């Protein structure tokens, strides 16, 4: 090629379309010349869904943007097209689903925001709790749940856990707002355990009315 191979524009902004070989702006979903669908590229979840990078996600906008993207990128839109287009549409839809699932859920969102800042919070594993206050709380609530025999008693524990979850989410919003990442990290761990308790309470509730299969 005749142009400067190391020009920043070439590296950062334009790449050839796989179909018509013309220039396509990176991050573009479709080629502006031949309309061919492009690959998903590497971009953070907020950018992908057109959301501002903030813990406070407006769910209505999130859903709206998600549906809009899937309307254009979902494999159902590419039935009868070339194998390459179908594969690209699938990877686009996968990327959009991944971004949506992460941003939709407060716990995943918080962990993801921390990972963008180079901090790791394990939200899947069973790391030990080193926050004594959280430890006490979790033990106490688990006991209350174990002792709850009636639907009403379980409902009470569940309601308490869910209220705690909401309080924790508000605190997370403040922490991220102040860019207090240490606090955000601690709150994310807390949210993980509170979420688990709320889930256990819900499961307990359905087991109460669910006959043993």
């Amino acid at each position, binding site marked *: *090629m*005749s*142009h400067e191979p190391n*020009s920043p*524009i*070439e590296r950062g*902004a*334009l790449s*050839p*379309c796989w*179909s*018509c*070989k*013309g*220039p396509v*702006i*990176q*991050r*573009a*979903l*479709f*080629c*502006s*010349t*031949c*309309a*061919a*669908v492009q690959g998903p590229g590497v971009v953070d979840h907020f*950018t992908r869904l*057109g959301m501002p990078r903030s813990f406070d996600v407006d769910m209505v906008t999130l859903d709206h*943007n998600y*549906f809009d993207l*899937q*309307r*254009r990128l*979902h*494999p*159902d*839109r*590419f*039935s*009868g*097209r*070339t*194998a*390459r*287009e179908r594969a690209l*549409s*699938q990877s686009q839809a*996968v990327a959009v*689903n*991944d971004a949506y*699932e992460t941003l939709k859920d407060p716990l995943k969102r918080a962990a993801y925001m921390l990972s963008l800042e180079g901090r790791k919070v394990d939200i899947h594993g069973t790391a030990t709790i080193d926050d004594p206050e959280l430890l006490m709380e979790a033990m106490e609530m688990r006991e209350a749940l174990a002792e709850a025999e009636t639907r009403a008693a379980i409902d009470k524990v569940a309601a308490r856990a869910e209220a705690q979850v909401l309080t924790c989410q508000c605190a997370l919003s403040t922490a991220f707002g102040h860019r207090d990442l240490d606090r955000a990290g601690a709150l994310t761990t807390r949210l993980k355990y509170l979420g688990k308790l709320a889930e256990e309470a*819900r*499961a307990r509730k*359905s087991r109460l*009315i*669910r*006959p043993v*299969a």
Partner: protein
Amino acid sequence: MMFDIYEPGESPLPHQSDRGAAVGIDLGTTNSVVAVSTGDKPEVLRDEDGEGLVPSVAYYAEDGAVVVGAKARRALLDHPDRVVASVKRLMGRGVGDVKALAGTLPFTLDQAAEGGMVRLRVGERVLTPVEVSADILRAIKARAEAALGKPVDRAVITVPAYFDDGARAATKDAARLAGIEVLRLVNEPTAAAMAYGLDNAAEGLYAVYDLGGGTFDISLLRMEKGVFQVRATGGDAALGGDDFDHAIAEHFLAERRIRLGEETITSAEAKQALAAARVAKECLTSRSSGEWFIEVDGKPTRHSLDRDTFEALIAPMVDRTVALVQGVLDDAEALPEDVKGVVLVGGSTRVPLVRRRVAEAFGREPLANINPDEVVAVGAALQAEALTAGSDTLLLDVTPLSLGIETMGGIVEKVIPRNQPIPVALGQEFTTYQDGQSAMMMHVVQGEREMADQCRSLARFVLSGIPAMAAGAARIRVTFAVDADGLLTVSAREQTTGVEQEVSVKPSYGLTEDEMASMLRDSMAHAREDMTLRVLTESRVEARRSVLAVGSALKVDHDLLSPEERRAIDAAIAAVEAACQGTDREAIQAAVDGLEDATKDFAERRMDRGIRSALSGVSVDTLGDKLGS
């Protein structure tokens, strides 16, 4: 420079209409239905008598003929050993799975088969469930072709949402054997929601309660302006209206044993009892009691049954569906009062107790203004139309069951949890547990249980060539990808060396490629022609995509070419178009390669121009936003 924003679908590929019709097929346990949608209202395709249901029953006559539908069901009494019904219950099942069901199934299993897919003994033949399903699909295809007066070669086929990967793959194989290209496998409740929602402009959270002959599905969907987003789904792939019949039949047989003082029940008695039970179930939907007779070997018995007794017999099963409803509400973190409407699907939802329990569970009367037998096929037809003619509706479905890998001690490590929107691809890292371990067995399972042996085994494969390392040093990333049909592909990669393996999960109880190929050979001769045609069609689609791309480029950047260069490109385009008229796939490929060569310089000049104009001040960021949002 002008940037038009194209939407896929705005520039449809030409020559799409030279294909046959695309239909929607509800391939049910008891009955199947086929429907079509072409612009106007979707329509169920019926026989001369106006009957839309095709009994999913196949009769393999002594003269080699295969009869499907009502005639086959009538043959059940005279030739019970030559008739196969309810084969859907065996799709994707292994011999081991079915042993537990033995006796409750209306067919004879081939005992010779050890491991692998179930085989049925039908007269002198041994058939797989895939072949029987293919015969049913052929009959459905023939009905559709007769009704439409043109060939039908593509379809959306519905499957229970709770069908596992093996059963989905088996359904796709059956369609392939029948010469039908599967445009998409769609979950039955999702198809029903689409038919209902589009017809009623429904908005909000809806539940679809689908109780068919052999399967139960419950899905919660959000419907909004043509978007059908499944929030959670659950069910039981082995619970259906057939179980109601069995409960009644057992009740009758217990009475008969006592009255005749008999110890054992013959299979003829069991079959008669089952037939009587089916009639009883239907009668008790509208009447409060009745009497039925079983007569075998000249020994008649009379059985009366009232609705209360009937309901007591089936209550445990209905309770189980209600428990599953509760579980799905929990998964979606929704309360019954959040649900705006409940759509009933499947013939078994006509049973009054089912309607009452559903109404109690949701605190509202279910919607009854749809035909529960036909709504799934109608939804499938709408989706077939959307996929072939384009549309604004969008189905966003989820994984019904968690997918994972067996790890040390038989514990399952989940890779994709249930209720994830599809398509989805997620990875998980695993490591070796012995020093110098060079291979690793991967066992892919599906299900919610913690132990692998309690989940459904989907596939086993070995990742070999792991370089010698200390235990725990290798990093093996296993990626599960589920496509929009709900089918899984697994790939594994050792991160430090890049050793890679991809397996498209041919389920443990599926057909191998060899078996599939030999079945294609044995079945209609033109099944193979269909395959060749499909490959040719794909080549043409690709060739036309190239011509279209060059055409768009010429429209924008034609001034970059000398008249001579332009003539060369035009000639290369003409060559591709000419090749596409023929049937030589290699010639098409050669012409496409020729076009690529002819436009190489042109492409480079276009890139240069793009970069120059970007450098000359067009803000790339704003363009990116415009295109990317």
